[in-house]
């Protein structure tokens, strides 16, 4: 905190305007100190340490040996890790693509005309967003169970052949877990896109109507371009939760059957606490955060180009 106070002191010895500003510039950093201490110590430092650990082979107890890029080679070649990353990326379809499409449709329908109860619709659709994901997982575990409500309904309507233990099924477990993600994130997408639609200038719709555009063409030519910025945001937010998903998979399937629903988060947990491969887990975590960062940067760039 050394400042060039003397250089800018006025004749009377009072601090002049410009030096006051310089002084204020440095002292304003003091206001950041508490936030910096928590964030630096408990978020950034562990992250850096995780990157560092990813270059070691370590079981979490004994001595670590330098591994160079060995762990990263495993991330790219070891079946478990490749599958986990692929599953995480695949969840983007369920956490991002479906919710944005569904959210846009619901938002467009709500915004199309004022109607009683649309406040209620919004409140209810947003509800999954505020629940602990563990609880969501527990609820869906029950819904998907062999004798659970979904199968009961299927049997009741004569589709008993389709009924199965969804989360234990090698083919269906992955989409079944994905649907839970769609259920959770659609409400947020709907709210984001509704906020966007409500900002669209109504005269654009009038102009479209004068050009004899029906509701569908109005949707494509006015609504969708009008909410471009909000779509970018919805995609960014949901994409991070797709790639970083943990709670739902951990509770519903634990990654199984086999490795059908394993995602990076659950595999990292297993690598550390079941097979004591700490370095490898850190390499996977590093790759995961790099993928998220690249995706967010690319989406941000696409969004800016469109604006």
């Amino acid at each position, binding site marked *: 905190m050394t400042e060039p106070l003397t250089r800018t002191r006025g004749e009377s010895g009072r601090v002049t305007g410009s030096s006051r500003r310089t002084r*204020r*510039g*440095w002292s*304003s*950093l003091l*206001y950041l100190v*508490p*936030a910096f201490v*928590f*964030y630096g*110590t*408990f*978020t950034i*430092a*562990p*992250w850096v*340490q*995780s990157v560092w*650990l990813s270059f070691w082979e370590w079981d*979490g107890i004994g001595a670590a040996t330098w591994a160079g890029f060995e762990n990263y080679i495993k991330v790219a070649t070891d079946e478990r890790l490749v599958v986990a990353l692929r599953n995480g990326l695949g969840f983007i379809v369920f956490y991002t693509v479906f919710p944005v499409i569904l959210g846009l*449709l*619901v938002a467009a329908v709500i915004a*199309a005309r004022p109607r009683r109860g649309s406040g209620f619709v919004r*409140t*209810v*659709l*947003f509800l999954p967003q*505020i629940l*602990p*994901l*563990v*609880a969501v*997982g527990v*609820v*869906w*575990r*029950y819904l998907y*169970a062999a004798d659970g*409500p979904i199968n009961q309904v299927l049997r009741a309507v004569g589709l008993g052949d389709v009924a199965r233990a969804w989360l234990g099924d090698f083919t269906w477990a992955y989409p079944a877990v994905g649907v839970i993600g769609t*259920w959770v994130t659609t409400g*947020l997408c709907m*709210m984001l896109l509704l*906020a966007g639609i409500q900002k669209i200038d109504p005269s654009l719709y009038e102009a479209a109507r004068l050009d004899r555009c029906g*509701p569908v063409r109005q949707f494509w030519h006015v609504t969708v371009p009008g909410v471009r910025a*909000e779509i970018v*945001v*919805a995609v960014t*937010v949901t994409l*991070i939760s797709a790639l*970083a998903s943990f*709670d739902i998979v*951990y509770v519903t399937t634990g990654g199984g059957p086999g490795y059908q629903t394993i995602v990076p*988060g659950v595999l990292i*947990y297993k690598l550390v*606490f079941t097979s004591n491969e700490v370095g490898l*887990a*850190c390499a996977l975590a*590093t790759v*995961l955060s790099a993928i998220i*960062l690249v995706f967010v940067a690319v989406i941000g760039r696409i969004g800016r180009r469109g604006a």
Partner: protein
Amino acid sequence: MRSAGSRILSAAFLLVAVLSVIVPFFALVSAALQPADTLAPTLTWPTDPQWSNFATAWSMAGFGSLLASSAIIALVVVPVSVVCATLAGYAMGTMRMPAKGFLFAFFLAGLTLPYEAIVIPLYFAMRSTGLIDTYWAVILPLAGAFMPFGIFWMRTHFESVPTELIEAAQLDGAGRFRTLVQILVPGAKPAIITYALLTFMWAWNQFLLALILIRDPSRRTAPSGLGTFVQQYGENIPLLAAGTIIVIAPIVILYFIFQRKFVAGLVQGALK
């Protein structure tokens, strides 16, 4: 004719959307009220609702102490986050400072960091400092992890405060800290309350950190206790459903009281 058709169609569409959210909740509540030995509860309202399932789940899983852990963690994290984010957001939103752009980007980067990427070193650090299994093991990392959003949120608020207001306060002889506490904080109340509610919800719902940094099941938070409960009583659906309702109740009640603030916070926070 056509407009009546589309009106019915769109109303039906909204109805399906609402049902897809409500039916799982209905299934959860009806399952929680079935006799505790029901293996496969049906999707009907029980003829003889077993309210005692809640008491059984409460005592079997020790939800009393789990909820208390969650509450203690949230009630420490929230004020710490609010104070730190308000100070930093005030500085970032109203003051000149060196390397401001870099500092802001540094904090903002935290919005993309997954918990998976920090939790392993945290586990070993907490273990070696003896903080593992204490509430601090979760409180401290959460306070750090909430900082990016908090600074972003409070900075946006303070940027919207008219400069004249700050200048007038300082002409009256108030220092910068007094300007914040006496002039700006009262006006920032809505922004602060929204941020406090969001951090409460995120702290309450946090699973991964609580699962890894508190290994002792009896000291865990409500959601991670629920995770353990699933593994122990996964087959006992009525008890599990009752336990789930106990864990989500506080946050659902808060949501219905402060609904607008939750929605505005999450939506505006994302959009800004």
